[in-house]
């Protein structure tokens, strides 16, 4: 093999292994889920000890790889529901930012707790498939031998497909958070809720 071909191959490997950003343009939800989760899983597996001793670096990985695939603003609007009425856009942004921190923390903790050594399995698409809304169904092998069924709800934005809900064993994050946070915002106001969400972040990071 000549040098040029080798270089080309190397570049191709490099591009496919590191990057989801290159694919975000026009990528379909299934490959987004496969590429992102497998990349994060293998990264965590290869450097498990170092991530365990330095959870902050894992949070950075999750933030750069996972968050760009999510439409957290849309999720936040769904979660706030009627409690979001009359709240200015900046506040909703601030709330979305707090939700991102919470999500990054939870997801990173989960990665360390349920270390999955096998690639994610995607079930065949069935129903719910249209131009604007779709669902990707996956199974993640757990070290205890069981499987966790994790589904992702995607919708099409001007920026391509973005996930806005995660559903674990039928339990939707958006629905569950919504039923907790909507009354809390109505009772206490959005500022206090944002403060609690971000202080929880400190608590968890300790």
């Amino acid at each position, binding site marked *: 093999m000549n040098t040029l071909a080798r270089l080309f191959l190397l570049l191709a490997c490099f591009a496919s292994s590191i990057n989801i950003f290159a694919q975000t343009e026009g990528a379909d939800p299934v490959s987004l889920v496969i590429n992102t989760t497998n990349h994060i899983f293998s990264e965590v597996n290869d450097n498990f000890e170092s991530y365990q001793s330095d959870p902050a670096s894992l949070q950075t990985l999750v933030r750069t790889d996972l968050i760009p695939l999510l439409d957290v603003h849309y999720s936040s609007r769904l979660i706030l529901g*009627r409690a979001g*009425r*009359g709240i200015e856009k900046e506040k909703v942004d601030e709330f979305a930012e707090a939700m991102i921190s919470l999500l990054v923390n939870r997801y990173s903790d989960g990665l360390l707790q349920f270390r999955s050594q096998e690639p994610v399995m995607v079930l065949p698409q069935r129903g719910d498939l249209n131009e604007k*809304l779709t669902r990707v169904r996956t199974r993640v092998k757990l070290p205890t031998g069981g499987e966790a*069924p994790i589904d992702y709800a995607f919708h099409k934005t001007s920026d391509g497909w973005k996930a806005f809900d995660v559903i674990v064993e039928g339990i939707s994050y958006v*629905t569950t958070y919504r039923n*907790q946070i909507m009354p809390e915002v109505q009772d206490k106001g959005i500022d206090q809720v944002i403060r609690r969400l971000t202080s929880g972040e400190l608590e968890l990071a300790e």
Partner: protein
Amino acid sequence: MANWNWLNSFLIMRFKLPVAAAIVLSLLLSACAGTQSRNTDPENDPWEGFNRKVYAFNDGLDKVVRPIAVGYDKIMPDPFQRGVGNFFRNLDAPVTFLSQLLQGKVDQSADTFGRFLINSTAGLLGLFDVATKMGIPYYNEDLGQTFAKWGYKDSRYLMLPFFGPSTLRDGPARLADSYIHPVGRAIHGRNQWGYYIVRGIDQRARFLDQDAELGRAYDPYVLMRDVWLQNRRYQIYDGDPPLEDYDLYLEEDLPE
């Protein structure tokens, strides 16, 4: 002084089961639970006021049960706990089998039948899940899910004392399940609580991980209800329920 012994012997004679006691007690109480301070989900939980009272009762009971479950979890090694879980799960197979037949899932019922035979023998009375290692899938079915398949899809949430979250459909269905259940059948009519106590502790120990989440929740009652109802729906649809109607969430967002 009112003598309630008749009720006690009635329950033990007729229904012979704590499930029966729980359902009867909860229905009696719901009849007099007229005042409700708030209703967070009138559609799925019209008896919220009553359910919250039972939730508080169970929560009080948990002050005793939880330390036992924590002790069990600490003392017993994981493989042992897995064995206990397998044992109880294997005993559910007859209920699953019959429910599958009633739902017309004949091929799946054959799998369940095979699992029960293999795990009860080669798996040493169910302690080892040999069937899964052989590639025979496990299915979760019961009569409550069967009634849902037959058309009784939406049922109001009902918090049972001792047993926790259920619905008006699933509570009585659970009682009927116990008549099919091999151990349930064997101990009907006798005052034998040992099996239920051990099973209860085992099940409580499985939820210890979720205690922190529940404790942090703004409204733990609502969190438990949401998680339970969503997961139940997932079971009824055999792991493939339709997506939530998210548009509805946003419509509420609009000013009226």
